[in-house]
Every structure is written in structure tokens, then in C-alpha cells.
């Protein structure tokens, strides 16, 4: 009869280091005092995680539902730090929040860690009057990146935040230690940015005209870059002004554009099936190449951008697929806003609803993907 409780600490560590999902690490750490000791004292290599989908609960302010595809369950959590604050997703473990007083915080809704960032006033926009409704719409998109992948445990020092803000859709950067947002000066003609990715110490930014600008992360200086022509589907979305259908993202050293395609009716509401196209940047030939097979990767899309995860099967998710949130148009007409979590297969170009249909308060507070972290 095996006596598992007699296993030495090193072997417990060896076994647990094969766990992948954060939820399993947490369960492991709660089994008994010995296992908890191993969890607290040993080093762990955090693998890329499939994110949880955070949904606003209409009847309970300050609460959020988190859908875990891995465990096929929904967690309901109270997040006091979001009450009364406007929120933006960043396709990472963090959300940015803006208070009525225009203070900015970075919040991890799962671990409750809350960091203060420089206030919006440091963006030096005019007018700065806190009374105008416009000041709550200054920030357009938020991105949080790690300089080093995988990130060392407990180290926020290597994270930085990039925002797209203002009427000109400019870029500003925050790194730990900054007392104000640093505006990225664009030397070329006024580019209005719609998406940002980070690769090998360089910020890549996609603008409304379809071109790519590249900046060095340390100096924030623009780097000369031979611009590839955007693919047809991307050009089409840009012409129609569907900027939130385009997402720039880095994955395993590749720079990808994820392009959502859906028809609209005469009133501008989305109708018909959703399709996704993925393009990768060929750095040598300076062109975008369509990716017809993502291989062992899945993409998770929300209104703020997307997350690419390798090895999704370990999390009970499908490869070569795009997970997205669909709006249920029929119910909008009766004043209810319903969403459903769906998965799109890039091989057969078909979507499937996953049975997590939810009502949300309005069409502004759309669900966000949150990546869990070890601490």
C-alpha cells in the first residue's frame, strides 16, 4: 500500500512541476501543510495560461462572473476595487480602472493586487476639466506587456503598460518608477493607432491607415521599418472604420494580425456569421502572410484585443481555434443584452456556441479575458 504522505519534498515538487493550470497549483497548495510548504518554498515555472472570461453581473454591482473553460465552471467574485470606476481590459492578468477623480489604477481582479499609476492629468491633454464627460473617454485601449517571457515569479518590475489615448489616438507608456505617463512622439505624419504588440524589446503599433510603426522600448524612439501592405480583409475593415475588428498581437516571436469579419445590416448592427482571418508578418520579405493553420495555438478575443495561448488542450480548449464573445442580436431589440461564448474553428470556418449564455448590463460593459497568474 503506497504511503503518499511519506514522499520527500523534492519528489512532491517534481510531481507538481508537471501541473500546468494555475487552478491545479492552487488546489495542490491546499491539500495539506507539507504540500503547501513545497508550494511556498520551491520555484515554479509558470506556463502560458488559458484566460478566464470576466463578465459583469447585472444584478450585483461590484461582482463579476469568471468563466473557467478548464474546469467548465463559473466563479462569482466580489471586486470592490472596480466599484464606481471605468474599466479597460488589457488581454493580460490586469485591468485598468479610471475613477471619477481621474486617478488610474491597475488591478488584478483575481489576486486583488492593485497598483497606482500616474493620473490621467499627466497625459497633458486639454481641457483638463474633470467635469466634462469627454474626460472619461480619453483612454481608448490598454495593453500590458512583460519585458521577459516567462515572467519571473513575484516580479512586477518587468511589466509595462501602453495606452492608446486622446482624440489623435496617440501612444503613452508607463513603466514602474515613472511618475507620469510618457508620451511616444511620433515623428512621421500623424498616425492614429488602433493596436499594439511587443516583441524583442520593440513596440509594434498598427495605425488606422494600415501601416506599422515600430519603437524601441527603452528610448521610445521610432525605428525605421519597411512597411508591409495590409492584407485585403484588413484594408476592408479599416475602410469601414471597424477598428475594433483588428487586433495586433505577438505569439512565439511572430507578429500577428487577427481580423474579425462580420456583415452589418443597414442600421449598422452586426448580422450573419462571424469569421476570423489571421496574418503573420514575414519579416524577411516584409509582407503579411495568411495563417491558415494556427497549429497548437488558440486565440482568445475580446473588445480590447486578444491573447494567444500555446498548448490549449491541457486546458480543455481546442487548437487552431478562436474563442470570442458573440452578441445575441434578437434580444437587443427587446432591451436585453445577451452574450455567448463561442469558438471558431479556423479549419472548417464554423462557429459553435459553448453554452455560457449570459445577460449583461449593457453593450458597453462587454466581457474581458483575464489571464490568471501564480501569485
Amino acid at each position, binding site marked *: 500500500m503506497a504511503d503518499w504522505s511519506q514522499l520527500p519534498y523534492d519528489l512532491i515538487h517534481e510531481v507538481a512541476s508537471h501541473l500546468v493550470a494555475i487552478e491545479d497549483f492552487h488546489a495542490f497548495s491546499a491539500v495539506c501543510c507539507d504540500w503547501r510548504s513545497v508550494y511556498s518554498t520551491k520555484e515554479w515555472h509558470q506556463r502560458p495560461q488559458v484566460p478566464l472570461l470576466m463578465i459583469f453581473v447585472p444584478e450585483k454591482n461590484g461582482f463579476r462572473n469568471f468563466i473557467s473553460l478548464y474546469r467548465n465552471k463559473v466563479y462569482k467574485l466580489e471586486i470592490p476595487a472596480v466599484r464606481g470606476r471605468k474599466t479597460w481590459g488589457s488581454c493580460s492578468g490586469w485591468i485598468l480602472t479610471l475613477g471619477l477623480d481621474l486617478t488610474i489604477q491597475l488591478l488584478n481582479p*483575481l489576486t486583488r493586487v492593485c497598483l497606482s499609476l500616474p493620473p490621467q492629468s499627466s497625459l497633458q491633454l486639454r481641457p483638463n476639466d474633470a467635469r466634462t464627460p469627454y474626460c472619461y473617454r480619453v483612454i481608448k485601449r490598454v495593453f500590458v506587456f512583460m519585458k521577459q517571457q516567462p515572467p519571473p515569479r513575484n516580479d512586477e518590475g518587468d511589466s509595462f503598460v501602453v495606452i492608446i489615448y486622446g482624440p489623435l489616438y496617440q501612444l503613452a507608456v508607463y513603466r514602474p518608477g515613472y511618475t507620469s505617463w510618457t508620451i511616444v512622439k511620433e515623428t512621421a505624419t500623424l498616425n492614429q493607432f488602433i493596436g499594439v504588440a511587443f516583441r524583442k524589446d520593440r513596440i509594434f503599433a498598427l495605425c488606422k491607415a494600415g501601416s506599422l510603426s515600430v519603437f524601441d522600448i527603452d528610448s521610445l524612439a521610432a525605428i525605421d521599418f519597411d512597411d508591409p501592405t495590409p492584407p485585403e480583409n484588413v484594408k476592408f475593415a479599416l475602410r469601414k472604420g471597424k477598428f475594433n475588428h483588428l487586433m495586433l498581437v505577438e505569439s512565439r516571436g511572430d507578429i500577428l494580425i487577427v481580423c474579425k469579419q462580420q456583415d452589418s445590416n443597414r442600421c449598422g448592427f452586426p448580422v450573419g456569421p462571424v469569421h476570423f482571418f489571421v496574418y503573420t508578418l514575414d519579416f524577411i520579405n516584409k509582407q503579411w502572410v495568411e495563417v491558415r493553420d494556427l497549429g497548437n495555438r488558440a486565440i482568445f478575443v475580446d473588445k480590447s484585443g486578444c491573447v494567444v495561448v500555446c498548448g490549449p488542450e491541457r486546458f480543455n480548449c481546442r487548437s487552431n481555434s478562436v474563442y470570442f464573445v458573440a452578441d445575441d442580436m434578437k434580444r437587443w431589440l427587446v432591451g436585453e443584452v445577451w452574450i455567448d461564448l463561442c469558438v471558431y474553428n479556423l479549419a472548417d470556418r464554423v462557429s459553435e456556441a459553448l453554452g455560457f449564455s449570459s445577460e449583461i448590463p449593457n453593450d458597453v460593459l462587454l466581457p474581458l479575458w483575464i489571464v490568471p497568474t501564480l501569485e
Partner: protein
Amino acid sequence: MAAETGTPTTLTLKSNDDERFSVAESAAILSVTIRNMVEDGCAGGVIPLDNVDGKTLASVITYMNGISAIPGVGAAADEEKKKSFRDKFLSDMDFETLADMVLAANYLNMSCLMDAVSAKIAQVMENKPVGWVRRKFGIENDYTPEEEAAVKEEHKWTFEGVETDDDI
């Protein structure tokens, strides 16, 4: 010494409950512990393995023979075959034996077996509630109620709405 004569050498391995097994040296030296003992001059005699019982040693030897029968190191096709062999070997094993196997692999210093058995054990606890893991592994909950509450509070979201003793 085998190198001089060119004929394959057989070793005798003795478990802690006095069972003896004959194994080809080429298979046995998959264990770094055994390889070190041979280099220290145990060849020709009997190699005592004080931390492994006969039943477990028999399994380990099946593993050693199976893996060493697959030729080549580094060639992709051979790696595939080794992986298939490992998967089949472990799938035939019941859960209780895995504990003995991981301890034996550790004592005998066999990293590929250790890796495979650890992964298999981790697989058992994946996507399971805490209470289930405790029952399966026969581990007693030695937290005080206050300690347990503190642990759940630290990673609150994973335990939200779940009693740690829940079954699936």
C-alpha cells in the same frame, strides 16, 4: 570488464527483500546509481538495492529492458517509440504502484522514468477538487480550520463556491 571481452555482461540485482534478478548490463546502467556501483567494482558480484522491493524492481527491470531494446539516441522515430513504450508501461500500472515507482526511480537515479512517472501522477490530480485529491492520495487534512480558511482566502477565486471536501 565487458569492454575488454566484447561479450555482453549480465548483472545480478538484489532487492531489499532478497529477490534476485538477472539483467543485461546495457539495460541496467540506465540507472545512474547502478552504473556508479558497477564502476566502483561491483560487477561480477551482486548489486544490492536496499531501497527497492522485489515487486517494484521487477517492474523497473521490465522498463529497462524495454527501453534499451529500442536503438538509437536522438533520432525522432526512436524517441517516438520510446514514448509509446513509456505510455503503455505506465498505463498498465495501477495508481498505488506509482508511489513505489517514483521512489524507486529517484533512488536508482533514472531521470526519464522519473519524469514519466511524475507526469502520470500529476495527471491524476489535474482538474480535481482538493477533497478528492486528499482522498485519492490518502493524505490527511492537517490544517486547523483557521489555517484552511487562510489558504482559501489567499487564492480565493479558485475556491469560490467550492467546499474543499467536494467530490467531482
